[in-house]
């Protein structure tokens, strides 16, 4: 979920975002200054005295204002912009932590990769990173073009079918950073958010270790009635919970749903009420998303499934 205020572009949280913030302020100042010059010239032209109007009226001002002045400003900006672009897109070393994020209509598949590029931990709509280290994201798409954007950490980069784009992000302090799909991807494109959570190093290691163990080990016991309903209502056809029979791949992985910060791809805070509401009729919350409404389930049944899912942490 994006924060809104202060504008995230102007509130950077990592080394791939703050140079752009500096650039933004420089550009805003440049725009204001040039605007002032143009307005001053226009003001003199319209309301100035005879002498001032004579100065502004003539080919000389076209040369000065229209050619020389922009030439100087633009040359400086061009060099600044090019060098900054180059430094922000420095070659990736290869020893960074890697995560593959796949844009899907209208959520994000997340897979933490090992050294060989094999996925080891599966998740969705949420990314955990360690503080102070660059993390390389492999951006892919499963269907149409999406664009991955977490403004406080970096600019955006598109996810294009048939291609793999690499992006680096890094957070310098622990916290949550909202993201959003930026390329129109049809239907509920507006409701396709994302969350990055940065942890201190040890906390991050602990989390990853726990999750690796969870991928390999048995699932938490959970509410047995909920587990049964999860299977019988058809949830497992689309969702996976590691270590259970539920291994559907069409929808988000629910192995860690209980600990997720948001629901519906970054659009709702995750709590018992919202989770129940989402399962019961997600179409009312995020119209045209791919999950059918489960209005045939009773409140008790929904409660049971919710209780079961809350255990999946």
């Amino acid at each position, binding site marked *: 979920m994006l924060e809104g205020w202060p504008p995230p572009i102007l509130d950077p949280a990592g080394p791939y975002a703050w140079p752009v913030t500096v650039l933004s302020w420089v550009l805003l100042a440049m725009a204001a200054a040039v605007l002032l010059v143009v307005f001053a010239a226009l003001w003199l032209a319209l309301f100035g005295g005879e002498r001032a109007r004579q100065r502004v009226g003539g080919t000389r001002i076209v040369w000065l204002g229209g050619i020389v002045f922009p030439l100087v400003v633009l040359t400086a900006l*061009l060099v600044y912009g*090019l*060098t900054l672009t180059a430094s922000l897109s420095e070659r990736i070393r290869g020893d960074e932590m890697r995560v593959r994020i796949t844009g899907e209509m209208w959520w994000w598949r997340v897979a933490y990769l090992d050294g060989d590029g094999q996925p080891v931990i599966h998740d969705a709509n949420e990314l955990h990173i360690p503080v102070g280290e660059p993390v390389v994201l492999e951006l892919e798409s499963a269907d149409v073009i999406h664009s991955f954007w977490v403004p406080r950490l970096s600019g955006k980069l598109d996810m294009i079918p048939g291609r793999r784009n690499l992006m680096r992000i890094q957070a310098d302090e622990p916290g949550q950073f909202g993201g959003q799909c930026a390329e129109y991807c049809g239907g509920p494109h507006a409701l396709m958010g994302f969350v990055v959570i940065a942890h201190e190093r040890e906390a991050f290691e602990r989390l990853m270790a726990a999750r690796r163990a969870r991928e390999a080990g048995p699932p938490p016991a959970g509410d047995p009635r909920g587990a049964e309903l999860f299977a019988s209502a058809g949830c497992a056809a689309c969702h996976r919970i590691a270590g259970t029979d539920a291994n559907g791949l069409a929808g988000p992985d629910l192995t860690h749903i209980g600990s997720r910060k948001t629901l519906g791809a970054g659009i709702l805070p995750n709590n018992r009420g919202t989770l129940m509401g989402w399962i019961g009729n997600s179409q009312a919350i995020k119209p045209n998303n791919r999950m059918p409404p489960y209005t045939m389930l009773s409140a008790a049944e929904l409660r049971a499934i919710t209780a079961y899912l809350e255990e999946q942490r």
Partner: protein
Amino acid sequence: MRAWAIVLGGLAVWAAHFFVLYGIASAMPGRVGARWLVLIVTLAAIAADGLILWRTIGAGRRADALEAWIARLGGLGAALSLVAVVWQAAPAVAM
């Protein structure tokens, strides 16, 4: 046709330069040789613009008013093209 060649010559040099550069960058992404090739092509474009400038500056004093006007327009176009060509090559040096 000659008049059009003078008027559009400089701008056409920019266009040719740009598309050759785009071709180089697309055909050999991330190669150092690309940068050298860009510089060579740029020098050629600068020379072509210079030639047009040199030819049109003299022609600006022609007796025929329209010919002088066209020559001057062509010269201005070549000068603008020169600036744009130099900018166009900047990425090969600065990036």
